[in-house]
């Protein structure tokens, strides 16, 4: 108990120290940028101006609509990825033949930047929103699929034999042994996917939609509101951090429950 308190205190102190250093570098970089008279109009990049703009954003309905629009796209994209990635990943993890057949196509597709699909997505899908769902899905399906496959592949064979010996049907093997065993891996996949989705989101929203955080950044650039621009960038970072912490929290709980501890 004492030990965990200690590490919590350490975490807090180092976290604050890191944030202060980050702010100092930001201030210094902002100062160096605007020292030149030609760049005076970039004064909005200073932390002070940014935080002021951020404060205004908090009371701006348009900003919250952008956040909701972006979160909605992330969630829909991730849901498609889960619906595709988990069953396919389970098949690949379970049947060695399918793993061998799909190995090269999957590694090949995985290495293509999802944004390369952008022109094709716009041609194929009627709405910009569907194109964004598609881009996020194409980016996120791989970590979910591959981690699920690994989780299923690593199921303790003794657990399977034990369950068969106890009279389990194939369906029970799947739901009582394989799924719970692979769940921590699926959640790791989900966490990786969420990070990728959040990164892909902003460029995907440059696509032509008229809502979302990526769109707001573009909009702020067009209206030369650099303080607002950086405030949105800052908000994107904060939201991403929050989403990741949420999944990390679930991941930890899940690890405690579903993974055998050594010893």
């Amino acid at each position, binding site marked *: 108990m004492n030990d965990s308190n200690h590490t919590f205190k350490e975490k807090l102190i180092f976290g604050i120290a890191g944030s202060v250093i980050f702010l100092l570098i930001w201030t210094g970089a902002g100062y160096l940028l605007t020292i030149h008279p030609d760049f005076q109009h970039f004064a909005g990049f200073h932390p002070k101006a940014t935080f002021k703009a951020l404060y205004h954003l908090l009371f701006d309905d348009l900003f919250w609509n952008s956040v909701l629009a972006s979160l909605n796209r992330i969630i829909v994209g991730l849901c498609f990825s889960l619906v595709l990635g988990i069953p396919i990943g389970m098949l690949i993890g379970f049947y060695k033949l399918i793993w061998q057949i799909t190995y090269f196509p999957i590694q090949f597709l995985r290495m293509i930047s999802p944004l390369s699909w952008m022109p094709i997505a716009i041609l194929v899908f009627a709405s910009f929103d569907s194109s964004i769902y598609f881009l996020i899905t194409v980016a996120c399906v791989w970590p979910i699929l591959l981690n699920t496959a690994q989780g299923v592949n690593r199921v*303790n064979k*003794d*657990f399977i*034999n*034990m*369950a*068969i*010996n*106890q*009279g*389990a*049907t194939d369906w*029970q093997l799947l739901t*009582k*042994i394989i799924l*719970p065993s692979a769940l921590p891996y699926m959640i790791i996949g989900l966490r990786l996917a969420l990070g990728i989705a959040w990164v892909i989101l902003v460029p995907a929203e440059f696509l032509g939609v008229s809502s979302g955080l990526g769109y707001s950044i573009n909009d702020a650039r067009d209206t030369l509101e650099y303080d607002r621009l950086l405030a949105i960038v800052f908000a994107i970072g904060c939201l991403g951090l929050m989403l990741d912490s949420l999944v990390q929290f679930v991941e930890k709980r899940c690890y405690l*429950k*579903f*993974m*055998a*501890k050594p010893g």
Partner: protein
Amino acid sequence: MAKIQTLNLNYTAQNNNNVSENILEDVNFTINKGEFIVLLGESGCGKSTLLNTLSGLQKPTSGQVLIDGENLKGPDSSISLIFQKSTLLPWLSVKENIAFGCKIRKDFENLDDRVAQYIEMIGLHNHRNSYPHELSVGMAKRVDIARALVGGPDILLLDEPFAPLDLYTRRKLQDELIYIWQESGMTCVFVTHNIESAIVLGQRIIIMSNNPGKIDSILDVPLEYPRRHSHQLFDKLKRKLLKKFGMAFHL
């Protein structure tokens, strides 16, 4: 409560170099109802394969396993298997792990009472809601045993279950196992490479030879339970077995 017979069991498997190896060759024996049999042999002599075949998990390449005269076709809930490594599911508590087999067989009659009774028997009442990672190796093994027994099997197969345990825990659990066997009247087949365990537990010891796995001989152990290491006959049998292995494998 059930008689086990094997008829010319053979098992062939491909090794890493794609050469087929005879793991079991012409295995024939009969185990009487309610008997406690030990399968003794060196590591890798096919005794685990033989046990898996008796459980129906593994199909023999040729030959048959007869349970009370009937051909064993696959896993059967009346045959319960305990593995060397604990196979408690980490996401279930002690209570839920013990009930696991009964629940998947939809055997719900008085399940809570039966589970509680076995938790009492293995002395883990205070740990009934604990998770496997909170248990010692010996406790986990007791839960494995309780899960295997709660469905009331006719045959209990044990694959070196006490090998990972320290000497004290092993001796204690061996005594407990004998007590459970005497109370229940099950037929037990216990696989081990430990000569002392074999003499402590078995009414008869089936000695297996290596490469391919064959029945070398069968040894009677005419000693009363609980057996003590200090007994004269115990020592005699131990020497006999040591000598046998020394001769059989040119050690």
